[in-house]
Structure formats: C-alpha cells, structure tokens
C-alpha cells in the first residue's frame, strides 16, 4: 500500500464504493503516514454531513436509539453513517464491539454504513481516528453521521468537539447516578433523552433534569428533554424534530462558523501535540537520553519535574 494506491482508493470512495470507504477507515486507524495523505485528499469534499453525538451509560439504550433514529432519518430520505465506539481493554488491547447487534436490520440498507471502532487507549472516549472516520463518511456523501460513545469518564466531553448536536441518554432506573453525571454532562447536552420511559420514576427523572437545567446557564438554548421507549420506537420522531430544531438554532446566526473555528483550532493543536510527542519520544529513546534521565530520577539524583525541564531545554536548542 503506497500513496498511489491511496489516491485510487479515495477516487473510488468519491464514486460511492463502500469497500474503498471501509478500507480507508482501516488505513486512517492504523497507518499514520498514509492517513495524512488520505485526509488531505478528502478534506475538500467534507463539510456537508450533519454530525450527531449520542452518549450515555452502558445499558441506557444508546445503540437501540441510534438504530431507531436511523430508521426515522431513512424514512425522511436521508442517508446515514454510524460510528459506534466501545472501549479497548487497557490490559490486552483487545475489544468486543457489540453495538451492531442492535442495528442488524440496518446492515443491509444501502443508505446506511456502520463502523465499529475501539478507543485504542486514547484518553478521551473518541479515538483520534474517529474524527477522520467522520470526515470519510462525510466525503462519501452521508447526510448524517451519528457517533455513539459510552459515557463513562472523559468520553462524553470529547464528543462535543466532533458533533453539532450532542445527545445525552439517561434512564429512569439510574437513581442517584443522575447526580453523578451532572457535573460534566449537563454542559455538553444539547438534548436530553430519557429512554425506557415506560419504567417507573420517569417523571422524577425528568424533574431532576429540569432542576439541573434551571440552575445552569446554557445561553439561549435550553436543552429539551425527550422521553423515548427506543425498543418500541416511541418518541423517535420527537427526538429527530428536536435535533432539527437545534440544527436550525446553531445555523441561524454565526454560531456554526464560530464552532468550526474553535474546533479546527483544537484539532490542529491536538495533531501538533501528538506529532511532536511522537517525534520527541522517538528521538529520546533512540539516543538513549530518556533511559539516562529516567535512571537519574530512579536514583534520586533528579526529581521528575527537573527531568522534564531538562528534556524541554533540548527542544529549545533546536
């Protein structure tokens, strides 16, 4: 696989070949050098897809919701790309990606492309490659791209940088967990979904969310709370209507341009940071410098902060 092969694959993707799309996602995930080339070829064709993020605790019904939302988008004549992200085991590097089980009926729909990804040790819930996969689905011509992540820890915050509309899914049986999630999640949700709304305590859950919203300042968009029973398709139309309202809201002024500016900046800096780190670590390891400094710290001749400063001074000299 070299740069010429990549150009051929990109041309195939732009012609609508889903095998080329699948292969390119694999390449951006695994081959940094080819990735740079792929993304520069793809970038001019991106910017048309509307990206929706869905996050929530394990078992809250995210995958089923994505499946039903996709069905609703399809009946409205839209094409959909789905990226389902599950965590990588920190111990073995492996992962079981099971979100497709809830989306089997969409597997053979030509207007839908589903890709499962693992977090691969990235600190946030969104693997770096997920951003690139979104761009590929966008260039492929999907009207909507839905990104599904498990909401435990940093993941739900990262999704904000990728999605235009972020949806947080909660369930009535979460009890006090709602309190626990409010810190990070309240700020990122553009829409709340209370799924499994046929369970008891629905109203109490809705009220708890309302109270949190009353206390927060989210500007002039107040996140709506939509009740759904995803397994039965209840509330899905209302959810999509809410998404469309939020879309109209961010597009109505220059909000979306500001969003693009801020995200592009974050994204560029993130790429710089990772490339710089890779380069630095490689150099330090090859020269044996890192080993020497680590030993100094182990032998208490130097503290870790001074060690880091010594490494940074080498950067200054260049």
């Amino acid at each position: 696989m070299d740069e010429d092969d990549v150009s051929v694959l990109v041309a195939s993707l732009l012609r609508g070949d889903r095998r080329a799309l699948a292969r390119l996602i694999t390449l951006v995930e695994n081959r940094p050098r080819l990735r740079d080339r792929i993304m520069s070829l793809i970038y001019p064709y991106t910017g048309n897809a509307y990206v929706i993020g869905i996050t929530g605790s394990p078992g809250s019904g995210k995958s089923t919701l994505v499946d039903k939302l996709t069905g609703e988008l399809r009946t409205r004549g839209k094409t959909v790309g789905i990226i389902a992200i599950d965590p990588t085991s920190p111990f073995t590097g492996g992962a079981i990606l099971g979100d497709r089980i809830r989306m089997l009926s969409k597997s053979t729909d030509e207007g839908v492309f589903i890709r499962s990804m693992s977090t691969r040790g990235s600190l946030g819930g969104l693997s770096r490659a997920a951003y690139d996969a979104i761009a590929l689905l966008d260039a492929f011509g999907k009207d909507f791209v839905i990104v599904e992540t498990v909401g435990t820890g940093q993941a739900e915050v990262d999704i904000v940088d990728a999605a235009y509309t972020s949806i947080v899914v909660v369930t009535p049986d979460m009890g006090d967990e709602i309190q626990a999630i409010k810190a990070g999640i309240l700020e990122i949700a553009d829409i709340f979904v209370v799924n499994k709304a046929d369970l008891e305590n629905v109203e109490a859950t809705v009220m708890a969310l309302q109270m949190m919203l009353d206390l927060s300042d989210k500007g002039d968009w107040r996140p709506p709370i939509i009740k759904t029973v995803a397994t039965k398709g209840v509330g899905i139309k209302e959810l999509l209507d809410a998404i469309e309202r939020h879309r109209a809201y961010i597009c109505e002024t220059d909000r979306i341009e500001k969003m693009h500016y801020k995200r592009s900046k974050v994204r560029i800096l993130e790429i710089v940071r990772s490339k710089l780190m890779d380069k630095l670590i490689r150099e330090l390891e090859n020269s044996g410098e890192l080993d020497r400094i680590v030993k100094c710290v182990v032998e208490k001749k130097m503290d870790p902060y001074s060690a880091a400063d010594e490494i940074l001074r080498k950067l200054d000299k260049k």
Partner: protein
Amino acid sequence: MEEEKKIRVIIAKPGLDGHDRGAKIVARALRDAGMEVIYMGLRNTPEQIVETAIQEDVDVIGLSILSGAHMALVPRVLELLKENGVEDKIVLVGGIIPKVDEEKLKEMGVAEIFGPGTPTDKIVEFIRQRVGEIRKR
C-alpha cells in the same frame, strides 16, 4: 510511528439456533488476545454477515453454527463474498460439523473448522498465522 494493525474479527451466528455460548467464549478469547471482535449476536442472515464484513473491513469471519444447517448457510456466505468481490477474508467455522461436510466446506473455501472442545489458544494461533501470511503478500 507505524503501529501494527489490529486484527479484526467478526463472530456471527447464521441461522436459527440459539446456542451462543461457544461464540461468546471464542469472542472473549480473541479479545483477550488483543484482537477487535465485532460481535453480531444471534440469527444473522448471510447477507448481514457479508455486508458487516465489508463495512467493518475485518480480516476474519467466524461463523458459529450448531443447527445443522451449515451446508446451506456457509456456501451462501462464501458465494456472497465472491459476488461482492471480497476475496481477502479468512472464513472460519465453529460448531458441530460432521467429518464428511468438513472436507466439502474446506474445498469451497473455508480456511478451518473448529469443533467442540477446541482450545481457544489454537484458534488464536491459527488466526495470527493466517493473517500474518495474508498481510505479507
């Protein structure tokens, strides 16, 4: 830094039997061996399996069948792969497959068949070796 590409595997259960214990054990073993396993659950059609294999760009398709319908389902999967121009995937079958059928399935293009009691290490090793050979090409 060029990372080593993760091995991606689909574990699917075509047909109508509901015995997914074996499929789940294999899925876990492969995950523990550092692979990414796309688990498809029960009652998958050959069409769903092949389309998933394409979209997920997997290296290996693992089919678990205990219903006895393997001589109908496996050839259909292989046929669909060919129809879609997908020739680089390794197809494995697990479950209860009579010896006479094993030979026929292998002739059709199944790489290996793992019956009940196969140590999971053996499956892991087989996948690693075969994927390695294909990637070298």
